[in-house]
């Protein structure tokens, strides 16, 4: 009996805390002018309204198009480049400092330059997302592929495995768990890239929803949009974690 109570305590505290949070939110909404902050209930109503008139749905669609294409392209390039660099040593040594620098620099600052060259289309936003998302996958894949047990490579080579077969049967299966860690990190970075592209290039999607409603002091809609992005990001990163854990189990099992 005491054990079940003890076990329930955590979730109960969490629920109370969420309820208190919503309460404070609601209370602040009554104290602060409507142009600056609105209560919890007003935000939920605004969210319902945005869903009802289809604005949220179309914004979500636009954002997810940019995010999805960008993540897919970034992941493909990062994965392939990571494998390539692990096999071609002079290229890896040559590019290493530039990759580190590209990862450490704030990628948002590149967005205006992408805007100048590629304009306002979806393509330009996808490029911004790719620039954000490519690095974690590239770096993790490279690290994984470099840590392949040399004995495995030697055995494969002594059986006259060709380079493509070596990649397919030894390096890629060994590296995938590492890549998936990078993939999860890339999801988070691509979301930032998506919002940055929608703010800085032509506004569209969820970023546009935020900017437009901020300019009109429709604070309820702003908060509803941020709430949507929070839920979306939590879900996508959670998904990334599930995929990562699936592959990590594979690594542990091997």
């Amino acid at each position, binding site marked *: 009996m005491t054990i079940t109570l003890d076990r329930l305590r955590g979730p109960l505290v969490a629920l109370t805390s969420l309820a208190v949070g919503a309460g404070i939110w609601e209370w602040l909404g009554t104290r602060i002018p409507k142009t600056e902050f609105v209560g919890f209930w007003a935000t939920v109503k605004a969210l319902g309204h945005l869903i009802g008139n289809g604005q949220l749905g179309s914004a979500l669609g636009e954002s997810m198009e940019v995010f999805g294409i960008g993540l897919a392209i970034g992941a493909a390039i990062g994965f392939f480049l990571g494998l390539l660099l692990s096999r071609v040593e002079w290229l890896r040594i040559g590019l290493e400092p530039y990759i580190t620098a590209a990862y450490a620099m704030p990628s948002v600052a590149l967005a205006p330059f992408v805007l100048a060259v590629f304009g306002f289309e979806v393509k330009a936003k996808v490029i911004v997302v790719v620039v954000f998302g490519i690095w974690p996958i590239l770096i993790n894949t490279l690290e994984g592929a470099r840590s392949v047990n040399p004995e495995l490579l030697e055995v494969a080579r002594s059986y006259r495995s060709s380079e493509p077969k070596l990649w397919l049967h030894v390096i890629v299966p060994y590296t995938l768990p590492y890549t998936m860690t990078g993939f999860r990190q890339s999801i988070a970075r691509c979301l930032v890239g998506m919002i940055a592209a929608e703010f*800085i290039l032509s506004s569209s999607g969820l970023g546009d929803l935020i900017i437009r409603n901020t300019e009109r002091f429709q604070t309820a809609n702003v*908060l509803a949009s941020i709430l949507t992005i929070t839920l979306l990001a939590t879900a996508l990163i959670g998904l990334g974690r599930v995929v990562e854990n699936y592959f990590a189990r594979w690594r542990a099992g091997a």
Partner: protein
Amino acid sequence: MTATTVAARLPRTFALTPRARRVCLQVATGIVLLALWEGLVTWLAPFYVTRPSGVVRHAWEVLSNRPTALTQLSGTFWYDVQTTVIAVLEGLAIGVTCGVFVGLAMGRLRDVEWALKYYVGAFFALPTIAMVPLMTLWFGYSSTARLVIVIIGAFLPVALNVYEGVRKLPVTYLEVARTYHARWWNVWFGIALPASLPYLLAGIRLAAGRALVAAVVAEYLLAIRGLGFLIKADMQSFSENQAMIALIALALIGVALNTLVNVATARLLPWYRREGR
């Protein structure tokens, strides 16, 4: 094949050390990348798009703070560097300090853990920059808005990482502490904090990245003086080469922050090779 035979035939004094060969290779790659950039832009892009030769041509003009006819605002490059760096460092100091306290409390106290972990997790997942427009409603188009968004960006990764580090504290440490009747502050700051230092440093690395991005986006969208705004002003007056110098400065700041964390890791944790996350 031929390269190695030539190298073997050279007198010993000409043979390069492995380190020097690395550096040569990296410099050569850099030159190839710059040449590619120059060539592609000259071949494909409109005249105003930035290219290495243009950046070199305008470097002195920007770095010497000289205002130009086109861009009155870019006359004070070093002022913009300074205000961005100070905002980022200020925000990092506040954000990291708060993050350490919240992380420790979450790691040590179960009720605090359960009360806060969904909030911290959700705000960590949310791209911090999505809140920049909201900050304008609260703080106006001011540098306070930038500071607040930088603090938020810095706080979350640190809180989450310290929390994770404290939770993985070896039980034996705590048992020894209890045997010696350690007080709670001894356990928090004498045991839990030092033991989670690798996590803290990994968190600070993430925090530095987020803080810089937050500052740049805030400057860009809110038109607050700083490198982000400088890029915007230069881009809008087709002075892309000048804007590229600001971008390079941002990249250098990012690399410098990263290096700082690396040096701290090497100094404080010589046994620790790389972060586990």
